[in-house]
C-alpha cells in the first residue's frame, strides 16, 4: 500500500512486519524516531515484542545479543557515537554468529560533535564481519530490512546485518513508499529457527575462550561465509522481486554504465542526486553513469570489476575518511583492478559531504568536470577556503 511517510516511521513499520521478539535501543539522533515508533507500536499492542530500555548502546547491543542467543529474532538501531560505544559488542555478535539486524542511521563522528549525515560510523566497522547494506532511498531502506533478516538467519550464513541509511536525509525525509502487507512479508521471511541457542532441554556453552589453536579458523569461516553471501544475495533479491514486485540486484546497481565514459561510484542517498545529474547530462549528450554499491560488506569486487572494466574514467565518492591514508571505499575499488589487464585509465577519489555538508547537483557536476586524465587522490569537494585560512594561535 502506498504511503507518504517519514523514513524512520517506514523503517519502524518494516521492522514491525518482521515480528522481532526483542527490541532494545538507546536514544541517539537521528535514529530516535525509529525506536520511538516501535515503542509506540508495542504500547498499542500492534507489535508483540519485549521492548527493553537500556542505559547505554553497549547494553542495547548486549541485550539483543542475549535475546538472540535464546533463539529470539531481535533488533536494535543506532548511529555514530552509539555505534562506536557498542563496537566491541558488534564484533562480539558477528564472532558469535548471531543473526541480529541493526539499522544504522549514518551520522558523523565526534570530535567535533556533529549530528548530521556522513558514513564514517558504519564504514569504520567494516572489519567486524557484519553484512553492511546501504539504502539509496526510503523504499530501499524499508525493503533491505526484510532482505536483511532473511539473509542473516539463513542457516548457511548466520551473520548479523547492518542496514545503513543516511541520517536525516533518509530518516527524516518524507517519500512515497509502497509498504508491503504482513502476508507478503510472512511469505518471504520464515520464522527464526536455530539449534545454537540457550535451552535448558539442550544445554550448551556459548562464547568460549579460543586459544591460538582455534581462533583463526573462526575468522576464516566468516570470510568464507561472506563469499557465500555474494552468491546468495542476488538469489534473495530475485525471490524478493517475485513477492514484492520490486527488483534489486543486492550487490550493485548499474545506472547508465554500459556506454559511459565517466562513472561515479557511490553509496547511499547521494546516488539519487547523482542519477538526476546523469539524466540532465545525458540529455546534453554527455556519456555519464553511476555504479551504486548496495552491499559494502561483503564487498562485491567481481560485480564492480565487470561493471567498470571498460569505463575510461571512474570517480569514487567517499563519505568517510581514513585520515592519513586513502579514503576507504575508493581504496577498495582501486584494489579491484590490481593486476587486471582491463581497468579504467583513471580512478579518482573524492571526499564529499562530511558532517552533513550538502552534496548538490552542482557538486556532482563539479566532480564530473574534475574527473579528467589527471588522477586525483583524496580530493575534498566543496571546502570553504576562508575556514582553512585560520591558523593555530601562538
Amino acid at each position, binding site marked *: 500500500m502506498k504511503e507518504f511517510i517519514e523514513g524512520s516511521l517506514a523503517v519502524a513499520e518494516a521492522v514491525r512486519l518482521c515480528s522481532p521478539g526483542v527490541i532494545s535501543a538507546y536514544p541517539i539522533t537521528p535514529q530516535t524516531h525509529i525506536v520511538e515508533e516501535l515503542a509506540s507500536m508495542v504500547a498499542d499492542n500492534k507489535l508483540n515484542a519485549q521492548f527493553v530500555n537500556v542505559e547505554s548502546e553497549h547494553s542495547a547491543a548486549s541485550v539483543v545479543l542475549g535475546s538472540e542467543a535464546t533463539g529470539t529474532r531481535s533488533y536494535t538501531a543506532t548511529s555514530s557515537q552509539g555505534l562506536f560505544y557498542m563496537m566491541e559488542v558488534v564484533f562480539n555478535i558477528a564472532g558469535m554468529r548471531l543473526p541480529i539486524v541493526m539499522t544504522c542511521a549514518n551520522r558523523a563522528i565526534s570530535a567535533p560533535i556533529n549530528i548530521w549525515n556522513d558514513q564514517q560510523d558504519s564504514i569504520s566497522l567494516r572489519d567486524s564481519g557484519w553484512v553492511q547494506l546501504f539504502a539509496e532511498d526510503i523504499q530501499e531502506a524499508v525493503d533491505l530490512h526484510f532482505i536483511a533478516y532473511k539473509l542473516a538467519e539463513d542457516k548457511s550464513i548466520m551473520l548479523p546485518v547492518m542496514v545503513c541509511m543516511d541520517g536525516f536525509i533518509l530518516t527524516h525525509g518524507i517519500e512515497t513508499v509502497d509498504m508491503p502487507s504482513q502476508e507478503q512479508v510472512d511469505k518471504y521471511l520464515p520464522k527464526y529457527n536455530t539449534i545454537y541457542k540457550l535451552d535448558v532441554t539442550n*544445554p*550448551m556453552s556459548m562464547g*568460549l575462550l579460543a586459544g591460538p589453536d582455534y581462533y583463526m579458523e573462526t575468522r576464516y569461516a566468516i570470510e568464507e561465509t561472506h563469499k557465500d553471501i555474494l552468491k546468495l544475495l542476488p538469489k534473495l533479491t530475485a525471490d524478493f522481486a517475485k513477492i514484492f514486485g520490486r527488483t534489486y540486484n543486492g550487490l550493485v546497481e548499474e545506472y547508465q554504465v554500459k556506454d559511459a565514459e565517466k562513472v561515479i561510484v557511490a553509496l547511499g542517498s547521494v546516488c539519487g542526486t547523482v542519477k538526476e545529474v546523469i539524466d540532465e547530462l545525458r540529455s546534453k549528450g554527455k556519456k555519464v553513469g553511476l555504479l551504486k554499491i548496495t552491499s559494502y560488506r561483503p564487498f562485491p569486487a567481481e560485480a564492480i570489476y565487470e561493471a567498470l572494466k571498460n569505463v575510461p574514467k571512474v570517480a569514487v565518492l567517499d563519505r568517510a575518511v581514513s585520515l592519513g591514508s586513502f579514503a576507504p571505499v575508493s581504496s577498495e575499488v582501486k584494489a579491484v583492478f590490481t593486476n587486471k589487464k582491463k581497468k579504467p585509465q583513471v580512478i579518482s577519489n573524492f571526499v564529499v559531504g562530511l558532517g552533513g555538508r550538502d552534496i548538490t547537483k552542482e557538486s556532482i557536476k563539479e566532480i564530473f568536470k574534475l574527473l579528467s586524465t589527471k588522477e586525483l587522490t583524496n580530493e575534498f569537494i566543496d571546502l570553504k577556503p576562508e575556514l582553512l585560512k585560520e591558523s593555530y594561535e601562538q
Partner: protein
Amino acid sequence: MFGPLTSKPGTSKNNKTGSWRVSAKPKFLQKNCIGCRMCAIVCPEGCVSGAGKKYDVDLLFCKGCGNCALVCPKKDIEMTKEEQS
C-alpha cells in the same frame, strides 16, 4: 561452515586435572566420618562424593589442595605424600 564456538556439557571431564598434584593427595580414612558432607561441599573440583558415612575422592581430578582435610571436623582425611611418577 565452522559454526559458532559452542561446547556440550561434560567436555571438561576430558581434562584429567589429577595430574596437577605434586606434593600431596587426600586419603579418606572412613573411620570416624559423621557424614557431615563438608568435604564434598568445599571441594573446588567437586570431585569428592559418597553417601552415608563413606566418602572418597576421584583422584583423576583431585588437585591436592587440601581443603577437605582441613574442614573435616573428625580429622578423618589425611593429606599423604604424593608419589612422584
